């Protein structure tokens, strides 16, 4: 045993070095690290063990705490993100404050990144020494209890958001459902049939929409957008802008006479995907929830010229429901949790010019076709060419438009194979003698009943051609191609270039993240990936939580998803929230900053550092103070304080300086011996 220095506050540290089976011990000489650790200052006991996280491993720690009177514990094993909680709990069971524990990552950061045993062992020692030196300076901390406001905000009224809202409302909790369009329903409301069962989308969705509207526990805020989010898990304060509808929701009965009488039409780019028109005062679709119409101010003739007011003239309600002087309302909502279900955008097929969308009339996007086959859509469900008359005799369906493509999105958009098959089926059904060509790279149909649906289409006589479409053109080379759209493709199954003339082309465009998803992620202070999809806490084990406590995600805003998956996520997020609400309070990490009021010079530098406005300045005493409940513990103010009087609990200067010295123990030894 070496002489123990640092005697001014003598602590008894237990060091535990994990083999992790052979994950660590294959590269790091764990026995040597443990033996060496036993010689380090303040170390009372050092052991190595096959699996520290096993119950036997944990008992080892608990026993030593009790029998050897350990006051500090260091465990050198995996990432703290993996097992810090496990070991903290073990310490707590043995009566040691869990924050007197420190974890050393010698697996992810060491044994898994190198095959060099000598270097890995040396690195492990340095990291362990850093932890030993750090843990000496740890202080016992208590977790902070936070009360959970039982109200929840759900952002996005598509099927995922609707599911979340209904689950929570049915559980007895109040929900604010915010939707930026005039009606809830989302993309699902635009669909005709849903694969693979071919249920009518509206038939299964609209009852749920009505439930939302009628539920006592749901406050529905459509035509509204979240503008600001303050606070933290349990206590968010959200600012919502309720845009002016110019229709009084109290008086309006939703009779629709105003819509009928409005003399002006606009192309509906949102709900009808540009395929149909709507009036200037409109509801997106007949079953819209809520039923109140909205005036499209930009195109309303009254707003532009001061004349018309047809809607007001014919409104039968008393008092009149049309209110041209209505203004946006700013609402302040307090909630405990937020579920984001903001959905997706469809890839803009114009970005691939060789597919001709926008230039060649009879190239349609998936959503356009979806509206076309919808019985309530602009063509009453008839499949027709752009002239709205002729029936196509041959149809080409192109998969992977914008997805699985280095130039656009690398990811697989997941739902396109299935919806392409659905389209093929619908064409077969409506135009029995039509020839259908389906161009795919790989047919991806995992899911209950999905592969069976594919087999059904094979039997229905769709021509499946394996190959990525190179071009859609109207430049005919032979008489048979005249007046047709020609799909140029390499058929990889026969190894030949083919040109297939068709009347209509449907592009199965990819799902992509909403255009403003980066801004939304910043608004809610959570992350999104490079594609713009929101980042889950764990891709497998925690798909609906985010890195920010109290913010959950559901549906296609997290990645391409079909209806059943979106519903599952919506319900999962709701269950997570319901669990938190029923607990009432949660314990938060005590990693918080505090200012020594006696020593603060009142320079106010920290005031501007805090991104959460958690630092207030007392004008009377000329000192700053951290509001613990608002502080998130980043430590930016700690690093900025010129007087060094802000303490960041569990990340104090003392602790970090000690750790720096510790991880460089060999360097200073080298220097001393030099």
């Amino acid at each position, binding site marked *: 045993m070496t002489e123990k220095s640092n005697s001014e506050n003598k602590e008894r540290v237990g060091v535990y070095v994990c083999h992790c089976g052979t994950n660590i011990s294959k590269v790091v000489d764990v026995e040597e690290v443990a033996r060496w650790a036993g010689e380090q200052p303040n170390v009372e006991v050092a052991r190595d063990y096959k699996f520290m996280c096993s119950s036997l491993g944990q008992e080892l720690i608990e026993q030593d705490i009790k029998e050897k009177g350990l006051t500090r514990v260091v465990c050198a094993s995996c*990432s*703290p*993100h993996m097992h810090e909680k496990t070991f903290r709990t073990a310490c707590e069971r043995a009566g040691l404050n869990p924050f007197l524990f420190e974890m050393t*990552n010698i*697996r*992810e*950061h*060491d044994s*898994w*990144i*190198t*095959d*060099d045993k000598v*270097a*890995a062992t040396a*690195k492990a020692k*340095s*990291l362990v020494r*850093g932890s030993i030196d750090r843990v000496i300076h740890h202080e016992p901390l208590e977790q902070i209890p936070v009360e959970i406001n039982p109200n929840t905000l759900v952002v996005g009224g598509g099927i995922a958001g609707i599911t979340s809202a209904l689950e929570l409302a049915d559980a007895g909790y109040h929900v604010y459902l915010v939707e930026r369009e005039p009606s809830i329903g989302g993309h699902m409301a635009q669909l005709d049939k849903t694969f693979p069962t071919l249920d009518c989308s509206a038939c299964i969705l609209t009852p749920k929409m009505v439930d939302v509207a009628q539920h006592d526990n749901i406050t529905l805020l459509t035509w509204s957008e979240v503008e600001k989010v303050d606070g933290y898990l349990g206590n968010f304060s959200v600012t919502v802008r309720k845009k002016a509808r110019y229709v009084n929701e109290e008086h309006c009965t939703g009779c629709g006479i105003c819509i009928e009488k409005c003399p002006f039409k606009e192309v509906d780019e949102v709900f009808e995907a540009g395929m149909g028109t709507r009036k200037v005062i409109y509801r997106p679709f007949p079953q819209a929830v809520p039923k109140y119409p909205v005036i499209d101010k930009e195109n309303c003739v009254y707003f532009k010229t001061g004349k018309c007011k047809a809607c007001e003239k014919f409104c039968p309600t008393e008092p009149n429901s049309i209110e041209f002087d209505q203004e946006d309302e700013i609402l302040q909502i307090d909630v405990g949790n937020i579920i984001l279900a903001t959905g997706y955008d469809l890839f803009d097929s114009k970005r691939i010019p060789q597919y001709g969308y926008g230039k060649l009339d009879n190239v349609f996007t998936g959503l356009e076709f979806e509206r076309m086959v919808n019985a309530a859509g602009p063509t009453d469900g008839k499949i027709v060419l752009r002239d709205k008359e002729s029936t196509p005799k041959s149809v080409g369906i192109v998969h992977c438009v914008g997805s699985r493509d280095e130039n656009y999105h690398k990811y697989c958009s997941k739902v396109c194979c299935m919806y392409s098959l659905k389209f093929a089926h619908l064409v077969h059904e409506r135009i029995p003698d039509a020839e259908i060509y389906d161009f795919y790279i790989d047919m991806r149909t995992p899911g209950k009943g999905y592969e069976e649906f594919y087999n059904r289409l094979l039997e229905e006589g769709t021509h499946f051609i394996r190959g990525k479409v190179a071009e859609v053109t109207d430049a005919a080379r032979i008489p048979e191609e005249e007046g047709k759209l020609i799909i140029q493709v390499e058929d990889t199954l026969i190894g030949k270039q083919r040109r297939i003339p068709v009347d209509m082309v449907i592009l199965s465009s990819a799902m992509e993240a909403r255009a403003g998803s*980066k801004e939304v*992620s*910043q608004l809610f*202070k959570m*992350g*999104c*990936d*490079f594609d713009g999809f929101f*980042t889950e806490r764990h891709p497998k084990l925690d798909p609906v939580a985010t*890195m*920010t406590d109290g913010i959950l995600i559901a549906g296609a805003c997290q990645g391409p998803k079909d209806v059943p998956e979106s519903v599952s996520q919506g319900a999962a997020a709701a269950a997570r929230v319901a669990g938190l609400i029923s607990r009432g309070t949660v314990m938060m990490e005590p*990693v918080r900053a505090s200012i020594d009021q006696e020593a603060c010079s009142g320079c106010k530098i920290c005031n501007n*550092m805090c*991104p*959460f406005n958690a630092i207030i300045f007392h004008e009377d005493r000329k000192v700053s103070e951290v509001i613990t409940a608002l502080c*998130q*513990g*980043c*430590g*930016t103010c*700690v*690093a*900025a304080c010129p007087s060094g009087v802000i303490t*960041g609990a569990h*990340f104090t*200067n003392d602790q*970090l*300086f000690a*750790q*720096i*010295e510790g*991880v*460089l123990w060999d*360097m*200073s030894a*080298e*220097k001393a011996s030099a």
Partner: protein
Amino acid sequence: MSETYEPVIVGFLCNWCSYRAADLAGTARIKYAPNMRAIRVMCSGRVDPQFVMKALREGADGVMIAGCHPGECHYVNGNIKAMRRFYLLRKMLTQLGVEEERVQLIWASASEGILLAEKVDQMTEALRALGPLNWDEKVVNRSNGYKAAEVAPVLEEA
């Protein structure tokens, strides 16, 4: 110094992005130089310039500060504050004779294990080429500049 010089880097990794990037690099079994000794901080904004000075003085050949990409900070903009400090600090260190390559600020999101590994490899290579820092010789006892001598006591205190 022995002839097989291996530079030592102290890495200050933020809890949310870069530390997880390093975790991911390990989980994905990406092999890279084991020369960085990581210290976890909640946010790159927590990295006090004194930490960097301390590490260099204690014998590190280089310091890497790693945070979330701008706009992706878990704490909104702590990384931007880290960046502001970083450029000032590096300028000061350069004036003291510490080569620019020795102090680096990188962004690595939790999904960028490969990127983090590459940056560590690159930095290790760069430091190998530079050789040991020798803080005392270079900075504290520097004979050709009175400025260094003046700041030396301050540095000693850090």
